């Protein structure tokens, strides 16, 4: 039998005890051990970004990360974005308003990329957003409306902040 390691993983604010082989990727643990199938796997070699999650707030490729590496870290997946009643957050709403998704397969990766980025840079220019969006691959949209969605979400957050 392969080695099994016991780890405690903190995902979306919940703690999970797991017994897993060290070669098991974070993406597989999230999807198949924890049932968080919102994180998708598009290339298994770290380029497409469909598996992007936040590790301690920073976007990271779950397909290139072994689950045993991130014990003790705060992991966030797309399932954490909506409210407890399932209502979409402002970023998700911006994606639907701007038709920033079609087949939806790459979408969770773009959402988590944007979530991490906007937390770090709340006032990005459109060109800066475009550069960040270039971290991931989408085959359906041509990216234009993904950039639109993130730009409008950022603008709205700033406006809400200013008026609040």
């Amino acid at each position, binding site marked *: *039998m392969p080695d099994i390691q016991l780890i405690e993983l903190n995902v979306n604010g919940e703690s999970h005890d797991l017994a897993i*082989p060290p*070669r*098991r990727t974070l993406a*597989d643990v999230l*999807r*198949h051990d924890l049932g*968080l*199938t*919102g*994180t*998708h*796997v*598009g*290339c*298994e*070699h770290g*380029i*497409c970004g*469909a598996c992007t999650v936040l590790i301690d707030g920073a976007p990271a490729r779950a397909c290139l990360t072994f689950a045993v590496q991130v014990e003790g870290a705060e992991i966030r*997946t*797309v*399932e954490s*974005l*909506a409210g407890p009643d*399932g209502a*979409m957050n402002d970023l*998700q709403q911006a*994606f*639907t*308003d701007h*038709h920033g*998704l*079609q*087949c*939806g*397969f*790459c*979408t*969770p990766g773009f*959402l988590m990329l944007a979530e991490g980025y906007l937390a770090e840079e709340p006032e990005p220019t459109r060109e800066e957003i*475009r*550069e960040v*969006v*270039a*971290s*991931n*691959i*989408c*085959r*359906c*949209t*041509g*990216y*234009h*409306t*993904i*950039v639109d969605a993130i730009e409008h979400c950022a603008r709205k957050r700033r406006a809400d902040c200013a008026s609040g």
Partner: protein
Amino acid sequence: MKEGRIGANGTWVGASVPRREDPRLLTGRGRYVDDLTAQGMLHAQFVRSNEAHARIVSVDLSEVLNVPGVVAAFTADDLNLRDMVGVMERPEHEFRVTAMPVLARDRVRFAGEPIAIVIATDPYTAEDGLEAAVVTYEPLPPVVSEEAALAPDAVLLHDEAPDNTYVDVTMFATEGIDAVFDDAHRVIGVDLRSGRQNALPMETRGVVAEWIDRDEQLLVRTCTQIPHTIRDTVAACAGLDERQVRVIVPDMGGGFGQKSCVGREEVAAAAAALRLRRPVKWIEDRRDNLTASFLGREQHYRARAAFDAEGHLLALDTDVICDMGAYSAYPSTAAIEPMMAAVEMPGVYKLPAYRVRARAIATNKAPTAAYRGVSRPQCVMVMERLMERAARELGLDALDVRRRNLITTFPYKNSNNITYDPGSYLESLNLCEQTLREEGWYERKAEAAASGRVMGIGYACYSERTALASTAFSERKPRALVSFDMSDITMDMTGSVRVTTGTLSHGQSHETTMAQIVADRLSLPIDKVKIVQGDTDKITYGFGSFASRSIVIGGGAVAAAAVALTDQLRILAAHLLEVDTDAVELDGEGGVRVRDEPERRLSYGDLAFVAYLQSPRLPKGFGPGLRASGSYDMLADGVFSNATHGVVVELDPGTGGVRILRYVCVEDVGVAINPQVVEGQCRGGIAQGIAGALFEEVRYDPSGQPLAPSFMEYKVPTAMEIPDIRIEHLETPSALTESGAKGAGEGGTIGAPAAVLNAVNDALRDTGVEFDDTPISRELVYRALENGPVGPGAATPAH
């Protein structure tokens, strides 16, 4: 109903209704095939050929079975499945029937071809199992180019296909065409090639199959564009009745044609599940997707066109060779690319005389499936390069040459024997040019030249036959004519409807757009309409989604079903209200009323209550229940969407890179059911067209090994390479469709490569270099610019 989301006529059609699909897909609650599981599920991977071309001497799986966790491993002999054989009803000298086995038997024809299926308790172990397989080969000479395939002494891939040629047709051959060439003022030639591409859905292929005793069914949950064809094929290969196979398509992460063929792995995994009586999941990894799935687009065109001195196109003679790879895919066959090219070549231009020879050849590469646009991107490249070259050689303006040749009177029957329905070919060109002029790009280009920068502007005009019709198919002669679709609709006692469609949305938004169509016909709020798709047990029959067919044919069928249901509602209401059927009408608020006494009305709920629970009150022969059916068969030559694309590029003399500064698309898809969705299809299509023009290519080394097995080598453009795209709408409603809509799925991809090519050539105008091939080589652009542009700006330093 939501404010501001209703079309101009107070209808759902024409409104950018928010997508029904979005909330689940945005919150991680979508369910794609790899998200599915089943009790006791096993995981499959495939032993694949290391060789591009070889006889299989032996396959030894004994060590595979010794790997802990491996449950089973099967070869072709173990599974004993019938081959897949695509057939065209054409004479033998035009179409050679070849077979594609589910697993390779005694011969492998491309590197990556599946030889055996290994099944294990988890996917990691299945991969471990693959490493223990021992396959012994007797190599054969690899055939990796058109020249090698057609060489007189070439080794044959298939004994049934002499000259390594699957398809060889000569069509149209207008009488007197040779004389037209002889007498022409000028004959212009184009020789162009397009690279092999991967359609590249972000979700790779995959399947979960299991035998369900209670249903006596093999349940195949798979990501496919063609669920009923998968059902029929799995049944045929495994020797089951069709009722013994149920295909369900969950949420699906794109297809673009790659999933419009039956995957060998889908059938093998289903057969293994049947054999083992345990659920089997196969998820293709990206490496296999890039090297061993279905590819497309590798073509070579040699065209000659006769022009008069004013730039009128008089005749076109073309030789097309499509490199279809190692197998004729099922069900589309190796004819899909050459037949599409042959028939659709003239596009938007009046062509008095036409002759085409179109061939499909066999090489040791992964086989070809439909890829978004199918041959039409290259046809448009041919026509647009001819227009540009004719203008250059005749000293005319290239847009004026196009204007002289565009079809402007409709319906128009061209020498390709197609009757074009009305479109806005000239108007879209004019508006596209006007837009780039008004945005100042012509001035900017001139300023750039003055400062030593290298900019170019390029256009492409095209139309796209959407919703391929019976007549289109009868010209091509496939055995299966996929021109119609069926729909069933049922209304429940809350006045809500469920409507089936045989099409299969996988990003195209049919859950929203088809609901818009139905909601209008029944005057229902859109949330009272649910579109049901992707389940062969719920949908009688259907062909799925490809070839921009869904909104015209599937949309036509759901509209027909909805109209049939309104007839039922009116018959029942008239009977209960004791008036003639002609005296009642839908009241627009979920009920039926007497036209002259509007206060006398019955809601849909009232009517359904009677239909289901009070059958003695029903008129003779009615129901019981509230349900209806409809179908739609495109009986004309199809409907033609059209567009003009305009592109501004800047070339980087330091790197040879091509940067797109501006992209304008003026499109006409008839009535846009949901304009935001149409724009999305356009932009996404254009991005894929740009990818083919500048970046993506599946290349092989001389031994037939694929050179792009990962995204490090297969260069998919990102947001840094794809610009924002301005879209302008024109609307020429189709008189041939239920809603006035034309198809919108592929157009963007069709126009983009030619427009980019023309823009790059415009930028290189002063260097004397012209490109006809895609992808445009960065190195060749660099070389063309190496000594700096030769034009007016050349004297000015680039600082």
